[in-house]
């Protein structure tokens, strides 16, 4: 067994939560730069330039890219040969987020569903844990804002809907979201599994760096086709009209029940924040 102390986990998660919120990933910066080249609308171009400038200011002046520093979502892969010493894994992850949001001056954005009272420290967190082989602990810290999350949808389609039905629902979800999720967006798609798995797949697909192809050639082609269709809607940057509504479509797929065709569409805004740490 390889031992990892809870303190190491707390520190790593704290740093990752701050980094994710202050430093826009290179993949997103590059995607925005290339989007500048094919955007035709002047307003749209101006917006993309301002987003790039925003990312630069945030990085240099050490303030968040976006004030909605989100609910903390953590994808965790725990190697079976790892033993966590000094306390519980979940508590350590949560403590890391608590500290990161406090020390990094990040906004606490979690509240009671009805009284709307803020929990005050951005907990509880949302953890998706996978047990894997090996002696490593991998953590992705993925803060997710409310604006784009609110525009996400889940559909339990009839198997007969097929690809045509799936594509139609994806484009429709983006079209209906319009300006609300802060386009240009990234569209995370989860197909198959079951009700909850499709949603987790959709979110997990967003971890793939922009600009890297889907390892499955068939899905890669469909991603490109969907992106073209989405960008025909004319929604454009911030929904004010233009060519660049989305920067990419990412699909993750797995088998499902013989009676089902689950589809989840998780919309991610341009403030796509994900930092990976391996312990």
């Amino acid at each position, binding site marked *: 067994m390889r031992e990892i102390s809870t303190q190491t986990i707390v520190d790593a998660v704290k740093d990752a939560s701050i980094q994710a919120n202050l430093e826009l990933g290179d993949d997103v910066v590059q995607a925005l730069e290339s989007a500048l080249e094919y955007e035709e609308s002047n307003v749209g171009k101006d917006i993309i330039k301002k987003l790039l400038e*925003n990312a630069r200011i945030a990085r240099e002046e050490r303030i968040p*890219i976006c*004030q*909605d520093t989100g609910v903390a979502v953590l994808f965790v892969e725990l190697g079976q040969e790892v033993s966590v010493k000094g306390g519980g894994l979940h508590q350590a992850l949560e403590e890391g987020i608590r500290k990161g949001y406090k020390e990094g001056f990040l*906004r606490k954005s979690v509240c009671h569903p009805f009284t709307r009272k803020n929990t005050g420290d951005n907990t509880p967190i949302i953890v998706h844990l996978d047990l894997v082989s090996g002696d490593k602990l991998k953590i992705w810290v993925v803060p997710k804002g409310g*604006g784009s999350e609110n525009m996400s949808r889940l559909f339990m389609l009839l198997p007969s809907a097929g690809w045509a039905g799936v594509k139609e629902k994806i484009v429709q979800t983006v079209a209906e979201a319009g300006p609300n999720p*802060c386009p240009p967006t990234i569209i995370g798609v989860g197909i198959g599994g079951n009700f909850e798995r499709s949603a987790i797949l959709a979110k997990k697909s967003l971890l793939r760096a922009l600009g890297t192809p889907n390892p499955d050639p068939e899905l890669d082609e469909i991603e490109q086709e969907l992106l073209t269709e989405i960008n025909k809607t004319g929604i454009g940057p911030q929904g004010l*009209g233009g060519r660049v509504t989305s920067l990419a479509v990412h699909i993750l797929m797995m088998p499902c029940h013989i009676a089902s065709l689950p589809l989840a569409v998780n919309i991610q805004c341009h403030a796509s924040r994900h930092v990976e740490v391996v312990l």
Partner: protein
Amino acid sequence: MGKEYHLKTPLSVEDIEPLRSGDRVTISGIIYTARDAAHRKIMELIEAEKELPIPIEGQIIYYVGPSPAPPGRVIGAAGPTTSYRMDPFAPKLLELGLKGMIGKGKRSKEVIEAMVRHKGVYMAAIGGAGALMARAIKAARVVAYEELGPEAVRELRVESLPAIVVNDTLGNDLYVEGQKKYRIN
């Protein structure tokens, strides 16, 4: 791109009537922040005919819940939040003389109609450009509902805060017209 206007608060009808959907504006002066929870509280005061924590007539409300100010700064990141959550409250505030709203995303038919009737405009700031927007904010102080944290009502002194006119006093909507222009069928 439309024309560019430099607005100074408080605003009069004459200031906003020339604005057209698609125009760019910069805003200077005092503006107020409020999100869902603050709107709900302000509405309760209006219904009870009590005094409000902020003036409404001639003012601009910015829909924002900033991140905390790090030491030495006035405010953290301060980009707009999605406006439709404030739609149930906006017509009443427009009736009381509110002249401008800043946020992101579409407004309801009722809000657009109220802007025409009471002469108000809705402007979009760039969603997710929180660090850039913070640069235009020169002073900030909580004026009500401190307990709401990011949702507290703040008075902001801004200099050349950039925004784009989405809905004007004629009922135009840039979200509809802009998209139509670039739509490929």
